[in-house]
């Protein structure tokens, strides 16, 4: 009696996930790739008047200043966010791994914004920037903070910084717990030995803590990069893409990140094919980032 290569249980246990994966990911993914080369819209559907138009949608992207702007903005936002989040959360991790009286309370406090969805957080911060900050200004003698033009969300540059600020506040606690886990694996004797040898706190950070948490850095940098690049919720509720700005001689949304640009192109401008082509570009960028991440990890593993 020969044992079957793939017993019944193999297919039985895999069938539900394969079905869900096929229906939700695989088929829409290939449909989407195909649609990006067609005149797909709400009216031109499969079997009706759907026509292959080659690279026209992609050519359209190149001529669209709003996409170029969103792309640049998203890269800037992503890099700033990544730096801010990692610096802040590493600092917080250093702080809450000390022998502080209430360190578990602090950890929980820093972590909690991460549990509340970005959409809700964005509204809260919109209120803070537009109402609470002017009041703080009046209280401490900067009445001009309340002028409509001086509000953080009134200009696209400062509104982008506001997005970074909220992003940092939202993610720092999450990234912090990853650093905390890494810092706690450092053997206490190592630090004590360094202290006895008279190493300054800065020296200990450079010679012990940073090298010993390198693995965590690869993870956190990648996590923050990818999550920032995909940001949508906070964008919707904090700035809604506004205020408007001028770019390449055309009025555009001043804080519209890529995810929102794709959404608006497809559903607000009713250009599904154009939105889809933008999504393909978005996907390719993420693939490149992931490939870099994997190869960096591989290289590091060899080094170790």
């Amino acid at each position, binding site marked *: 009696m020969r044992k079957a290569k*793939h*017993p019944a249980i*193999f297919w*039985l*246990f*895999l069938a539900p*996930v394969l079905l*869900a*994966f096929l229906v*939700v*990911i*695989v*088929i*829409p*993914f290939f*449909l*989407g790739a195909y*649609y990006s080369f067609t005149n797909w819209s709400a009216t031109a559907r499969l079997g009706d008047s759907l026509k292959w138009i080659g690279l026209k949608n992609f050519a359209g992207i190149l001529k669209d200043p709003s996409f170029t702007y969103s792309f640049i903005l998203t890269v800037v936002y992503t890099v700033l966010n990544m730096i801010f989040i990692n610096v802040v959360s590493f600092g917080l991790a250093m*702080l*809450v791994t*000390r022998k*502080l009286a209430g*360190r578990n309370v*602090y950890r*929980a*406090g*820093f972590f*909690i914004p*991460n*549990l*509340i*969805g*970005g*959409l*809700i957080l964005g*509204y*809260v*911060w919109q*209120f803070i920037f537009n*109402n609470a900050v002017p*009041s703080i200004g009046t209280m401490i003698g900067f009445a001009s903070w309340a002028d409509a033009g001086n509000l953080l969300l009134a200009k696209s540059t400062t509104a982008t910084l506001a997005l970074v600020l909220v992003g940092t506040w939202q993610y720092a*606690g*999450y990234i912090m*717990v*990853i650093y905390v886990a890494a810092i706690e694996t450092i053997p206490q004797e190592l630090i004590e030995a360094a202290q006895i040898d008279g190493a300054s706190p800065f020296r200990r950070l450079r010679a012990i803590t940073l090298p010993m948490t390198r693995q965590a850095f690869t*993870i*956190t940098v990648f*996590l923050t990069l990818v999550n920032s690049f*995909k940001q*949508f919720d906070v964008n*919707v509720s904090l700035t809604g893409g506004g205020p408007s700005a001028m770019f390449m001689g055309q009025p555009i949304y001043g804080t519209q990140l890529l*995810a929102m640009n794709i*959404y608006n192109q497809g559903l607000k401008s009713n250009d*599904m094919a154009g*939105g*889809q082509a933008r*999504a393909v570009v*978005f*996907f390719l960028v*993420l693939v490149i980032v992931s490939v870099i991440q994997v190869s960096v990890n591989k290289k590091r593993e060899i080094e170790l």
Partner: protein
Amino acid sequence: MKTRRTGRLLAPEILAIVLFILFLFPFFIVVVNSAKTPFEITQNPLTLPAQWGKILQNVVTIWTSVNVQYSTSFLSSVIITVASLVLLNVLSSQAAWVLVRTKTRLSMGIFVTFVAAMVIPFQIVMFPLLTWFREITTLTGVRLLRSFTGIILAYIGFGISQSIFLFHGFIKSIPLELEEAATIDGCRPAQTFYRIIFPILRPIHATVLVLNGIWIWNDYLLPLLILGKGNRVMTIPLAVSNFAGAYVKQWDLILTAILMAMIPIVIFFLFAQKFIIKGMVAGSIK
């Protein structure tokens, strides 16, 4: 000399307290302004409310608001999150198990495909998904858009790759002898999995629950597309955005709606704090 030392010891503690207050300041803003009238808010959003009793009035307004439909939205969010989590945990753990235990090219290939799919962002599938779900409904009669079935199916599809990946890594470390003993005792494969392996997976189940739970409960874009606005089935984030869109700048009520959306999560966190933080860390490191 002595004061300098205590000063040095106290500095981190003070810094931590200051940062802690800064981090929680937005929550303070939400709470105090949920208990104010619009006039009080325009006067000063930083002060404590004149009468805390106003908060009840605002809560009742949100509770009965047709834009929020708090009780129904809350229930829908619970149904969607719980159903997706149960199915994700059961289906992906059993799938990961057969993928680990079957050492063939096909099995390896399926696993690698799942892992590779983790890089696929929602944005590239979201528009075709809408058309395709509509197509399925015309073909089979199963309603997927604006329904529980559709959104739960979508969450399973989007959550499956990472979940299988996490379970796969864990199951690899379970010694095979355990299962062989069960087989000799006459256990059928499905029994072996559910009686012997499934209980061992508890820590990784926790990770998968936490990671997917936070994502699904707070997600906005997928419900917005699949459920749409003004639908019978509405999640909490959809309800909040619905309300904020309809009552522009009525911050007393918007912030009350936000407060009511936050409370269940904060309560849950206070009870399951260790569990949640551990789960998040474990999930990110793998």
